[in-house]
């Protein structure tokens, strides 16, 4: 195990710890750190707590206030992310100019990639909505509605950031009965409405159930404020996948409409006149018979067994 330059692990435990923090081919879930700014309001503290509960167990909630301004100076954010190995952050603050401010952000290689500031206009917390909640850690279904998420650049980045933030760990299979949580984002007139529902699978005529929704979780009415988006090449760099993950395509295999597998066999050029085919004894020319053409003079060839 290389630990070039830095600390050489002395115990198995420290080695495992360092390996979990090292860059990997397929990465695990991103962790989020949720922190407060210099001044916070009740709305903000409640909102942060609710979002933390949505994001558990891959989140850390800091209790103390951090007097930093992410849009001006991101060094303390980067330091925190290095310490806790988190690549997503949520920073809540409140002042007169920007009341009830939430900054969603993500980092690449411990440097800030994107930061988007959203202001909360209306907020209904988890505790205010009296309904039975989903268990923690269920992978939510995400729905984005509105053309802005496709047309406007900032909204597109916001969409990608929200997907990163709210999707859970990548799983290979999901339990059909466990699809309970739905997060719905609607973009309209520069505002983004976030609602969280619990879906009930009702009987329908066929196999697929009918959905009925019941509002549970926190509901937010966001307004888009400042953004700090990564430059295009940094964004591209962050998306670079390692070559080992690319699926190697097997050459020379093709399928037709019926699913039959085809391949191509390459052969050298054959001299067809010297081709030894199967000899049908019954069809062989007999000595007595009259034969026409060039083959008259030739005696029938000795049967050469082709293996």
């Amino acid at each position, binding site marked *: 195990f290389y630990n070039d330059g830095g600390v050489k692990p002395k115990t198995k435990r420290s080695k495992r710890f360092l390996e979990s923090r090292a860059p990997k081919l397929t990465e695990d879930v991103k962790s989020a750190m949720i922190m407060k700014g210099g001044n916070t309001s009740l709305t903000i503290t409640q909102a942060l707590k609710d979002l933390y509960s949505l994001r558990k167990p891959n989140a850390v909630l800091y209790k103390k206030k951090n007097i930093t301004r992410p849009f001006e100076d991101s060094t303390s954010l980067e330091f925190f992310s290095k310490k806790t190995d988190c690549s997503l952050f949520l920073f809540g603050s409140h002042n007169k100019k920007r009341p009830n401010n939430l900054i969603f952000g993500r980092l690449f290689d411990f440097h800030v990639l994107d930061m988007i500031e959203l202001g909360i206009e209306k907020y209904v917390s988890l505790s205010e909505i009296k309904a039975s909640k989903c268990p923690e850690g269920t992978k939510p*279904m995400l729905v984005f509605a509105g053309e802005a998420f496709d047309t406007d650049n900032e909204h597109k980045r916001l969409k*990608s950031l929200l*997907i990163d933030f709210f999707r859970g760990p990548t799983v290979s299979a999901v339990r*059909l009965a466990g699809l309970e949580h739905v997060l719905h984002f609607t973009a309209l007139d520069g505002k983004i409405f976030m609602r969280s*529902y619990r879906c009930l699978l009702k009987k329908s*005529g066929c196999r*697929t159930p009918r959905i009925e929704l019941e509002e549970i979780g926190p509901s937010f009415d966001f307004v888009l404020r400042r953004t700090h988006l990564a430059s295009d090449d940094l964004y591209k760099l962050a998306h670079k996948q390692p070559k080992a993950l690319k699926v190697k395509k097997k050459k020379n295999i093709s399928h037709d409409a019926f699913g039959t597998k085809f391949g191509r066999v390459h052969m050298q050029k054959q001299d067809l006149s010297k081709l030894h085919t199967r000899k049908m004894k019954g069809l062989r020319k007999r000595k007595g018979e009259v034969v026409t053409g060039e083959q008259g003079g030739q005696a029938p060839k000795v049967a050469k067994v082709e293996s």
Partner: protein
Amino acid sequence: MAAHSVEALLAKAEQEEAEKLRSIAVHKELDLEFDVGNLLACDKNRIESRDFREQKKEDFLRSLARDNTQLLINEIWKLPTERVEEAIVAKLPEPTTPLPREKPPPKPKPPTKWEQFAKLKGIQKKKKTNLVWDENAKEWRRRWGYKRANDDTKEWLIEVPETADPNEDQFAKRVKAKKERVAKNELNRLKNIARAQKVKVPGVGLTPTAQQSKDELVRAVSVAKTSTASVGRFQDRLPKEKAPKNTGKKRKFEPLIGDFSNEKQKQLELLKVMDSKKPKLDITKAVNKQMREEDREEASAKYKKGAGKKGRKGNMSGKGKGKGGKGKGGKAAGGGGGKKRSKPGKR
């Protein structure tokens, strides 16, 4: 009659209502985009601001959400399912939305020296058991580490082998050997890392260690001098600096096909020497050399004892040189004299 038709109508109306409530079909202008691997659905349809009034906002949002979720669930239900321990599970495809990574992808590490060799020879890794039976302790102990089986360092009795000096401290010898092995391992590990990072490790003498000998310094100076663009041709020497010895080609070979007469001469001389009865080894010279070697060793041993524990100094190179020197001396005397340590008089 009328009652029947009314009943029929009511029944039909009820049935239609029930149908509507149970239907899973959703009508949308534009189809949604699905990324089932992420359980994601994107609705690009225009949302009319008219529908979006203050009182009905929540209801509008909820119905929109319901429709979209229904479509997503329809998609998910199309996936192949299997039964895993009394739960029905749908296998998700790979997520298709490109999302940025956390950290840059790891670079593939070049194989270490041993790994290259093993690949070349086709050596497979053999999995070893964790525990080994220890005869002395009569129990299973781990193969290496704390309280290991058959621990060399814990032996209280070491037989002095016949070929060794009776006054030599065997325990100290073992400890020293272990220290040297550890240092060698560490050096190899660092070399592997340097090779992986393509950091050029300069040769012996150029990375300054603690106590460098005179010829190491001279070598370092000569290497530094020749590492200019014109390979040191225009570098002036210091006033008292001597020309470095042992530079230039280490061995000079005659060209394969060249001077025939020269070659013939050489071969005839060789045959003459082989024929003659004169011994090739000058015994007195060899014996004197051996005596000088021994005196030098005693002097250095005294110095080392006096200096105490200072001596990690470029241990590898020092040891290499020492071994080389001893080997040569031994070989020269080996033809004439007996074993290495025997005094010449004893023959």
